[in-house]
């Protein structure tokens, strides 16, 4: 950890935890500011603390991106200092990178981001396996964020894992779908205004046969990794929906809120495997990415682990899913031999204003960031490399906005002059359609 980063982190940490204005008891900050706010002594008003800047090359571990307030906002982690870094910018506007906080000592190097019209939130795992939530108004100043910890109500315990995803509703409430250490998928949520207390917890799927009537024979036979890998949460006015992997059976599942609570069903249980691969069915459902088109139909892009390919599931009815292969991962190598590439990890899907999907994902064989775009004349998919400079494409993510175009991020791994491994955030822009 460089001294610059350390000092910046300490400043950020102090700023984030301070509250109230002890030196100005008679001013507008006489009463304590709300959690996540500090008193600005110049204006004597409660403001979000100013985050320290990240002056080095931005790190790329766990990279995520969204669009808020007309800017692309990134979140990523520096694996050395374990700092959580966020940046905001545009193609022609240099990114302003700030340090949000630090991962817990044993926390996974993962971060999640989401934005609604009113609010943007970034979540990571802090000390004690508890979520830290940073938030600000979507149109707010990027250097000022509030940060809080998700503290469970009395009698409730939870332990975050690396599998979580944040969603922000239009009113600014925050929900986090996460796989608890007890191997179940759960939801923790807080309405606006956010704070340390007031979080409520709910079970989405414990993997039991009663969870929507879905079954997993492997789990019943004794294998117990449970459910909830790599959830992707989408909050719409009508409901919340999350896709995730049933780890024991290698299935893609979906859960949606209804008037009766969460309804769980399986989207894809995998194609049969040839005997050369051990038989059974393929393991699918990793790195799921959920998005709704302009007509409200859900589309889920995900990775088929066994076949190393990218799939897309769509439904007209909400129950009968049509699965298509977006990328089989077969390329021609320099020796004119067909090569099987491992593709489809870190899938991220979005729709443009014509309701045409695009999916970014990792090609783990060429270590490149790829994109698949549905052709406008519905003649299948156009696939190409979006970024292939070095070992890139890890933690691929992208966001699309008709005004600013498509912004894709991923982690690039490289070596510095001394041969040390360096994590860099790659940001790739493409024009809007």
């Amino acid at each position, binding site marked *: 950890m460089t001294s610059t980063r350390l000092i910046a982190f300490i400043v950020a940490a102090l700023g984030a935890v301070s509250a109230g204005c002890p030196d100005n008891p008679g001013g507008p900050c006489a009463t304590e500011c709300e959690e996540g706010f500090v008193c600005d002594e110049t204006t004597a008003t409660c403001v979000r603390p100013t985050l320290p800047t990240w002056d080095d090359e931005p790190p790329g571990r766990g990279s995520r991106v969204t669009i808020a307030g007309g800017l692309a906002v990134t979140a990523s982690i520096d*694996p050395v200092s374990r700092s959580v870094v966020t940046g905001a910018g545009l193609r022609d506007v240099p990114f302003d990178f700030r340090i949000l906080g630090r991962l817990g000592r044993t926390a996974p190097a993962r971060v999640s981001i989401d934005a609604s019209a009113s609010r943007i939130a970034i979540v990571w795992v802090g000390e004690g396996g508890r979520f830290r939530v940073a938030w600000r108004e979507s149109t707010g100043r990027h250097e000022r964020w509030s940060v809080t910890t998700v503290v469970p109500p009395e009698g409730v315990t939870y332990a975050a894992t690396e599998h979580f995803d944040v969603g922000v509703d239009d009113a600014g409430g925050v929900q986090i779908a996460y796989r608890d250490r007890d191997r179940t998928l759960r939801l923790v949520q807080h309405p606006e205004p956010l704070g340390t207390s007031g979080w409520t917890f709910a079970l989405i799927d414990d993997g039991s046969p009663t969870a929507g009537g879905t079954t997993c024979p492997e789990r019943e036979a004794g294998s117990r990794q449970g459910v909830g890998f790599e959830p992707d949460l989408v909050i719409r006015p009508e409901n919340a929906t999350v896709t995730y992997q049933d780890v024991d059976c*290698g299935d893609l599942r979906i859960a949606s809120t209804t008037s009766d609570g969460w309804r769980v069903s399986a989207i894809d249980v995998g194609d049969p*495997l*040839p*005997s*050369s*691969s*051990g*038989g059974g069915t*393929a*393991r699918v459902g*990793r790195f799921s990415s959920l998005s709704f088109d302009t007509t409200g139909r859900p589309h889920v892009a995900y990775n088929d*682990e*066994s*076949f*190393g390919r990218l799939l897309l599931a769509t439904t007209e009815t909400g129950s009968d899913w049509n699965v298509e292969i977006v990328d*089989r991962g*077969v390329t021609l*190598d320099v*020796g*004119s*031999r*067909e*090569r*099987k590439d*491992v593709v489809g*990890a*870190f899938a991220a899907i979005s729709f443009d204003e014509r309701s045409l999907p695009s999916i970014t994902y*990792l090609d*783990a*064989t*060429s*270590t490149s960031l790829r994109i698949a775009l549905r052709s406008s004349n519905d003649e299948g998919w156009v696939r190409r490399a979006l970024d292939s400079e*070095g*070992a890139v494409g*890890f*933690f691929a993510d992208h966001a699309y906005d008709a005004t600013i175009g498509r912004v894709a991020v991923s982690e690039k*791994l*490289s*070596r510095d002059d001394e*041969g*040390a*491994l360096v994590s860099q955030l790659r940001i790739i822009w493409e024009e809007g359609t």
Partner: protein
Amino acid sequence: MIDRCSSTILIASCIALALVSLSCDEAQIRSSTSTQPLVFQESGLRFLVTPSGLETLYGRARPEGFIVSAERREVWREEGIVIEAGPIEQVLTPSEFVTTPTDGAVETTTEFDSLELLVALRVRRGADVRICRKGVSTDSASVNAAAELVEGDSGPTFAVTRTPVLADDDWAIRDIGACSQGELPIAFDLESALVTYARDAMVLSTVEALETSPLDTLGVVLDRIEVRRISAFEPNRGTALLEGRLPEDGAEVTPMGLTARLDTALDVERAGCAPPVDLPPSQFLSAAPIDPSALSGTDADVAFAIGGNVLNRSAHVTALGGFACRGFEDVSADDGNGELIPTDELLLEELGLEDLPLGERSRVVFRPGSLPELTLRPERGDLLLDWDEVTIDIYSELFGVPTRIATLETSVQATLRPRAGEPGFVGFAVETIDVLEVSLDSDLAVEPEAQVVESWTRRTLLIALEDLFNFPLPVRPDSQIEVVRTEVRSDDLLVIGRF
């Protein structure tokens, strides 16, 4: 239709699996409807089945024992009485079965102790029918026969051309259970009729027992078949076309046993992962005859001579058919995935990759960029493998995703030593590996010295090639032949086995 890995696997099919070890799950063998003309290599394979091996083959042709079978026969018709003997359907266990091959025939002696045949006796008087069961026995019987090798519908077949000779002791008759056959005609000699019937049954059954197709029993099917590479991934799927053909006079019996020579043809439908080259023209160099003295002191039942060019062409077909594209059948990291090896074993720190957050398991993916060439080296007792432009991809889990972290391209020169003691196949131990013109492609490796890369590549190839080279014996898998000795000869690989 031949099911994959069925008991009727044929000799040629094994060739397709040669050099690269494949399980039954990875190849489908079936009859081919292809009419593509194939170029045959004369005497690409030779067999020798020893006299003791012939005895075993006969035993395998009749695994249930010596079947005595005879239809019902009328033995008397006079005075309004019809008497019939039989049928017999009975399995006997010979006390001894000896085969003695001679020039052109196999002489056999089948001996029985305390033999008793159960014969039905049917006596009909008008509408009245009475059936008794009789035991027809002798203390000992011996059937001598000779079977010559003739051309049959399914290849060479042993046929008994002279009536077998039965030598026996006196026969005795007894009733089996209560019997009310009624009064028999005075002129009817019951004992003589039943003994004659029983003796004829023994002779005819001997003829039946000896008429077998030895090559079929051995597992040789003279047909065109195809071996399809089963793979989860289309680029790996190719097909080998194979045919065995027995030339005229290709099989003969001598005092040393049964010998056969087979013309072989191999062709291929290229897999996408294979090097983009054509199958070279077939060479014409036959397997040498098998000198029975090579089997001395081995107690062997069978020997195979596999022509060096058959081996080499098999290697070409293996590479072009996708059978050598290995290591990537199941991308997932399931515990049962046999393609995965501990990352620690790869010593990635030598390439400066130790600081990557890699998972515990990795895989080595093998992709040929050219066709392998095999050279027999009888003076060293091994085979030299030259394989240019071999690609090895190293995949390790990175952030939970199997990720290619390095690729090596090199030319390989390896010595393969055939080893005995394996059931059903000849294993080739990789004794030495030399690598030439090694290139390392990795965005993540710290550029190591060339010498380190060479050393690392050599060691990784040993991991990749370990147990990769096997040559299934050209017999059906259930024959359970144990390889007891191998010999690299100037023209072929001689494999000596025991049933």
